[in-house]
């Protein structure tokens, strides 16, 4: 998505002033047509798999097996959706996903912003070491079992904290944010200090209002990551009513495809849903995030570009 957006931007913003005054050259018009075609193709290539998934999720199993479903659903049916949504556990787990995502994103944003803001101050003593501590974790991790033992002995198991706290700061996001804060003019903050604001006031009243773009970007990054994540929940949640919907759906697919499951016997109607099941799963888990995307997207490109170029 990022590459498409950045490619599109200059073509959209540069021609506008030209169009009014100077007449477009022939070459430029050809370029615009070719450009339009190429970009339309790109859109189609990106969109096709998703439309196909939606079509599959609404189609009858037999048509999918026969390989006849492309863009339009065949033998329209909502059976798989009904099968999934009639399960109360699905809704419990969906609610968990929303709850975990919101909580973890809020915590992550607060933690990342604080850390990044501190690191952006060049006069800070030991700044190099603080950066080093963060970057170190990009290369070395404690490993699965030590992490598990730590989280368990802190008593975080079976709670949202097991998901939110160990992943609260993503170092990549931290560095992007730090670069963004560094790019803000120091004069602003100095002026605010002269006018009597303390450090927290500067952060809350001056810096953050100027950083909506990067904060929105980070919200999107974190929210998508937490929404899609299943591993932490799988590790630390010992009861199914605590699982997020990703674990639920992952398990459902494993049960329907049955590779792990030689000994037990599955139901005909449930296995029937197997071909559509994956498609329905993808639709149901991506839809909410897709709905959020358009609202945050305008900040998205700007935010990450600002950080990247000046950092």
């Amino acid at each position: 998505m990022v590459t498409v957006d950045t490619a599109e931007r200059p073509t959209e913003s540069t021609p506008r002033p030209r169009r009014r005054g100077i007449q477009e050259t022939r070459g430029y018009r050809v370029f615009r047509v070719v450009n339009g075609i190429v970009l339309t193709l790109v859109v189609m290539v990106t969109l096709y798999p998703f439309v196909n998934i939606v079509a599959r999720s609404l189609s009858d199993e037999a048509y999918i097996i026969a390989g006849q479903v492309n863009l339009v659903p065949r033998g329209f049916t909502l059976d798989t959706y009904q099968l999934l949504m009639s399960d109360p556990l699905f809704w419990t787990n969906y609610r968990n996903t929303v709850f975990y995502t919101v909580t973890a994103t809020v915590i992550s944003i607060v933690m990342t912003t604080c850390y990044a803001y501190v690191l952006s101050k060049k006069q800070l003593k030991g700044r190099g070491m603080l950066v080093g501590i963060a970057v170190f974790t990009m290369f070395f991790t404690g490993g699965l079992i030590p992490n598990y033992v730590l989280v368990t002995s802190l008593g975080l198991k079976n709670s949202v904290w097991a998901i939110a706290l160990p992943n609260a700061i993503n170092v990549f996001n931290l560095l992007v944010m730090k670069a963004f804060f560094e790019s803000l003019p120091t004069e602003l903050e100095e002026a605010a200090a002269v006018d009597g604001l303390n450090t927290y006031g500067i952060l809350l009243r001056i810096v953050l209002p100027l950083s909506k773009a990067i904060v929105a970007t980070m919200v999107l990054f974190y929210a998508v990551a937490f929404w899609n994540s299943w591993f932490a929940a799988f590790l630390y949640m010992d009861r199914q009513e605590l699982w997020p919907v990703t674990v639920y759906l992952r398990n459902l697919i494993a049960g329907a495809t049955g590779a792990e499951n030689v000994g037990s016997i599955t139901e005909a109607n449930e296995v029937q849903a197997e071909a559509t099941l994956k498609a329905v799963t993808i639709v149901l888990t991506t839809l909410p995030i897709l709905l959020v995307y358009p609202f945050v997207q305008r900040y998205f490109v700007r935010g990450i570009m600002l950080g990247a170029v000046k950092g």
Partner: protein
Amino acid sequence: MFRRSWRHAAAAAAVLLALSSVTACGDDPSDSEDLSENRAGAMENYTAGTQFKATEPLSFSVLYNNHPNYPLKEDWLFWTELKSRTNVSLDKVAVPLSDYNQKRSLLIGAGDAPLLIPKTYPPDVHAYVSSGAILPVSDYLDLMPNFKDKIEKWNLKAEIDTLRQQDGKYYLLPGLHEKPWHEYSLAVRTDILEELNLQVPKTWDEVYTMLKAMKAAYPDVYPFSDRFSQPNPAGNLLNMLAASYGLEGAGWNFQHVTWNAQAQQFEYTGATEQYKQMLQYLNKLVAEKLLDPESFTQTDDLARQKLANSKSFVISSNAQTLVNDYRPDLAATNPKAKITKIPLPIGPAGEINPASRLENGMMISSKARESKNFVAMMQFVDWLWYSDAGQEFAKWGVEGTTFVKDAAGKPTLAPDVDMIGLNPGAPKHLQKDFGFGNGVFSYGGKPELVQGFFSPEEQEFQQVMNARAPKTVPPPYPLNDEEREQVSLWETPLKDHVYQATLQFVLGQRDFAEWDAYVAELKSKNMDAYLEMVNGAHKRFQEKN
């Protein structure tokens, strides 16, 4: 890192143990036999056939493999009835079936595992033995009269021996079958057989003639296009053929070594003459365009599509794929089509049933040994998983509620209870609403029990298969830790090379004249050293036991 530190700890523990046994002058009764501190709640006179009931209410933690088709419910009749029959409640750690093995490893590694760890397959146990986290259950068989009884009555000693580790003990309580239960074979379009006036093939040679006749009638079709090729090419087909040629296993059940009873030693499966013959057979099928070369790489869905659209007539199958996949697919595309699972074709090894009589089973955390309820727990495990009454309870439920028995004692589902469509439209479901027939608690047993829910068609298939001789079980060759580590380093390159060469030979990219060169390549990948280690371990085990 973690494994190594465990190994150091284990080595240190071993040294300590050795020292303590020296100071204690050897043949002291080991403390594993003194169970006087661990008898709380246990029954005094528990024998095979006794109904187990703890003398006080007990609770044991259990790792629970949560199947999405019947997700865990606390109000299942299974739990309440179990409590009233045995006075035991189970404290479940629910793990999604999709990643059960990973969580199991994690919990055992972190020392946080529940006491009972079911749904473990025999080869998975090796990884945990050296950590000391798993109980050597073979030391405590006296607490498990039903388990011992079944091994003796069903003559399972040879199978059980394959579970033994280097110390001569075993760490898994496997699922026990009286008769081998073989599931996989070929599904064949019988309407095409009728149309071409062909008999159902009994041997692999007859399979060849059948495919040939199909090809003659339908020249544009690859009559045989197979599935189960991921992650291993032709996983099921190669495995079926390997068994029919007298090998230990190939494909998705690849076994590096096969026991040669005449030479009294292990041979490398991929380098045997039988393996070559089996590849030649497959190569013949491919060369004559009887077997779709894509069989070795395509997805299951694609293979199903070809069958559904009559672009192939033969495919690998088990009882479920036949009923759940092929028949509904064909019903939608070609209502006249008929398809059936044929008895496993016979090869040079004769009429054998290649299935193992051991199934996945249960490990027990070694920390359970410290519990004052240890004896009661072992009795409970013995009753629920290995007694006839416990097995019937776990599978069928409560007589009069979930099932009824006829005069001959044969159980059938109660009319208002459904299971795999046996009582279509019934308001309740044996697994979802009652918690019986649950893969965690119900497996193995007598053939009547195992086949309880099978369709008449599948029972017929099982009857044919049960008439065949069970496969002879190879002798055990338990490796020690260093050997196992060494062997696992050799195994991957060897296996990769066998897979690669298998495809090359079968698809005709490599000539069978190069077979010796291929064997030499295996040798350069330490095949001989591998065999030496395995045969050495086998001899060592024989001398010791």
